[in-house]
């Protein structure tokens, strides 16, 4: 069906209209036919019957007058009757004329009627030629034979008039039947055609509407399915009407939707991927943040632990020093008593106890110093002193140790070494640590302390180098060298002694005094530790140094070496934060 719905509907309407028109025209035709028949009956048949009846009356009257003519003897009556007869003839002629003028009979009836006319004319002719002449003068009352001779003609007239009447009646009947038939036909045709129209309309309507409804349902189902997300819908409608166009457009729309959904899904996937990536990034960030926080916590914990360790060491050192001081005190007392009471044989042993005790005290002091520096509680006391003097003092302290290990101890100090404005005790402590290490790890070798003064416009520097010909340090151990409690020669520490704090403490002290320490070494050939210190530092300078020194809140406490040299409160310059 390649027509639009509108066309179809119009076509259906057209078919209906056509059927109605046919029906209407047919009905009109039937009506006119019936009308004609009825007219015919009214105008022709009824008229002819009336005329025929009138003619029959005239004929009967005529016969009756003839009888009277015979029976009446008076000439006046005879004359009156003759006149009446003429009158009747006149009327009869008039009837004939009317009949012929207004009536179109069929052939049979015409023939019969013409016979009637002929018979009438002959009857009249015979009446006038034979009957009247024969009876005018008769008064007998006897019937003249001429009357008798008229009888057959009269009979024929009667018969033929009857025939004409019958014909007319037959025609009327035929017309009636025809009208009736036409009516029946019309009724049948109208009823059947109405029914046909109804059926055709119904069929067309039902077919069309059913078809449209079915296809709209298909479309509706498809739209519902699409609305529920099924985009694989495809509406297949045959034809080319609006619904098919709609279906095609619907299919296009669904295809577009499908395409867009695919695009959307792709976009969605991209978005999801992007989100996932972002989430990962976020997770990474969070993890990194957490890691940072963990690192911070760990650092804080480490610092706290370090602090706790330092506190512990300080406390322990103090607690160790108290009884150790008592021991040293009693040794001193015994030494004095032995000396005063002449018990000189006890003196070497007492000296050994004292020496060992001093060593222990040094170790404990180092620990205490180190923990003080770690806690930032080390003070720096700045005094002017002679570099040469300090160097010689330390050499003097180290000399017995060097001798014990069969080492040659050299001091190279130029005359212009000059003065330093710094913390003499700490310089002494650094040199002592470096020299005792050098002596400790060298046997039958040479240990040399070299002092140099570097002159700079913005302040001189003093460099102390401690070179030995000892066992040396492997490169991989250099990095750990200045770490607290690290001992390069772990397996030999028992032989060499020490706390593992000496170098770490020395470096801390160097930095505290605004300088630093470095080392070069070759395994088996020996090591050179070089300390560079500013010749002159002041409170501001150490304050600057302190900034580099993360834990430094306070500086300094004099150690036991310094206590032996600084004896008065009033000559002590101390810095405290």
């Amino acid at each position, binding site marked *: 069906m390649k027509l639009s719905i509108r066309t179809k509907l119009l076509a259906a309407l057209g078919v209906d209209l056509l059927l109605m028109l046919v029906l209407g025209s047919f009905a009109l035709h039937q009506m006119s036919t019936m009308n004609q028949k009825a007219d015919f009956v009214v105008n022709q048949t009824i008229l002819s019957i009336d005329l025929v009846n009138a003619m029959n009356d005239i004929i009967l009257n005529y016969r009756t007058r003839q009888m009277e003519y015979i029976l009446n003897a008076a000439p006046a009556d005879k004359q009156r009757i003759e006149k009446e007869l003429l009158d009747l003839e006149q009327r009869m002629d008039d009837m004939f004329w009317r009949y012929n003028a207004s009536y179109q009979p069929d052939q049979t009836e015409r023939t019969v009627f013409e016979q009637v006319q002929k018979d009438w004319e002959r009857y009249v002719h015979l009446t006038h030629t034979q009957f009247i002449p024969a009876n005018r003068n008769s008064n007998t009352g006897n019937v003249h034979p001429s009357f008798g001779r008229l009888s057959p003609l009269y009979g024929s007239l009667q018969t033929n008039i009857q025939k004409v009447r019958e014909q007319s009646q037959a025609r009327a009947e035929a017309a009636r039947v025809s009208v009736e038939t036409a009516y029946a036909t019309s009724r049948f045709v109208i009823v059947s055609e109405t029914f046909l129209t109804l059926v055709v309309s119904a069929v067309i309507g039902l077919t069309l509407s059913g078809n449209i409804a079915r296809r709209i349902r298909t479309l509706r189902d498809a739209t519902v399915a699409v609305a529920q997300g099924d985009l694989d819908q495809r509406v297949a409608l045959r034809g080319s009407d609006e619904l098919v166009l709609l279906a095609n457009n619907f299919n296009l729309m669904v295809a577009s939707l499908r395409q867009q959904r695919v695009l959307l899904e792709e976009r969605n996937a991209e978005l999801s991927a992007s989100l996932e990536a972002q989430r990962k990034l976020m997770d990474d960030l969070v993890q990194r943040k957490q890691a940072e926080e963990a690192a911070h916590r760990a650092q804080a914990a480490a610092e706290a632990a370090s602090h706790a360790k330092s506190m512990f060491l300080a406390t322990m050192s103090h607690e160790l020093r108290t009884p150790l*001081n*008592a021991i040293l*005190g*009693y040794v001193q007392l015994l030494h*004095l008593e032995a000396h005063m009471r002449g018990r000189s044989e006890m003196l070497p042993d007492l000296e050994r106890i004292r020496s060992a005790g001093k060593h222990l*005290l040094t170790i404990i002091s180092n620990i205490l110093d180190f923990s003080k520096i770690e806690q930032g509680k080390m*003070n720096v006391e700045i005094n002017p002193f002679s570099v040469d003097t300090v160097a010689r003092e330390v050499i003097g302290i180290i000399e017995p140790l060097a001798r014990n290990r069969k080492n040659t101890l050299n001091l190279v100090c130029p005359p212009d070494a000059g003065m330093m404005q710094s913390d003499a005790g700490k310089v002494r402590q650094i040199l002592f640590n470096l020299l005792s290490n050098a002596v400790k790890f060298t046997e039958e070798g040479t240990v040399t302390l070299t002092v140099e003064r570097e002159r700079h416009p913005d302040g001189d520097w003093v460099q102390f180098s401690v070179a030995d010909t000892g066992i040396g340090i492997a490169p991989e151990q250099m990095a750990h060298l200045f770490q607290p409690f690290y001992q390069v020669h772990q397996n030999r520490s028992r032989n060499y002694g020490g706390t593992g704090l000496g170098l770490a403490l020395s470096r801390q002290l160097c930095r505290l005094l605004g300088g630093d320490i470095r080392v070069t070494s070759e395994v088996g050939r020996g090591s050179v530790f070089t300390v560079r210190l500013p010749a002159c530092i002041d409170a501001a300078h150490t304050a600057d140094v302190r900034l580099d020194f993360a834990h430094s809140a306070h500086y300094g406490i*004099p150690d036991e070496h310094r206590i*032996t040299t600084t004896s*008065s409160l009033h000559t002590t310059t101390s810095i405290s934060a």
Partner: protein
Amino acid sequence: MATVLVADDFLENRDILCRMLQLIGYRTVSAANGEEAIQMALAHRPDIILMDLSMPVMDGWEATSRIKALDELRHVPVLAVTGHVTPHEIQRAIDAGCVDYVAKPIDFEMLVGKVTALLQNGRDGQVS
């Protein structure tokens, strides 16, 4: 014979100091805390007081300032003896009235030198 009052809460420290000083010819009295130190000082009128700073009951700073507040003891030099040599503590000791300080562990020679010098300077007891 000069009298030295040794105030220290550690028995060993007291014992060593006293016996050392006795060996070289001083008379000694000792106290285990600041309160005891004031009582002993009032009772024995020492020529010099060696005052440990960290002590129970009454610490060395408190005891020194109380001694310096007493007319009969004001002239006696007080030498602080301490294991905690920090500028803050030393300053507190000087503020309380100590004339000098000696760090623990005590270098006996130095202690004797300071004590001798303070006694020689007489009742003014000031060190340059």
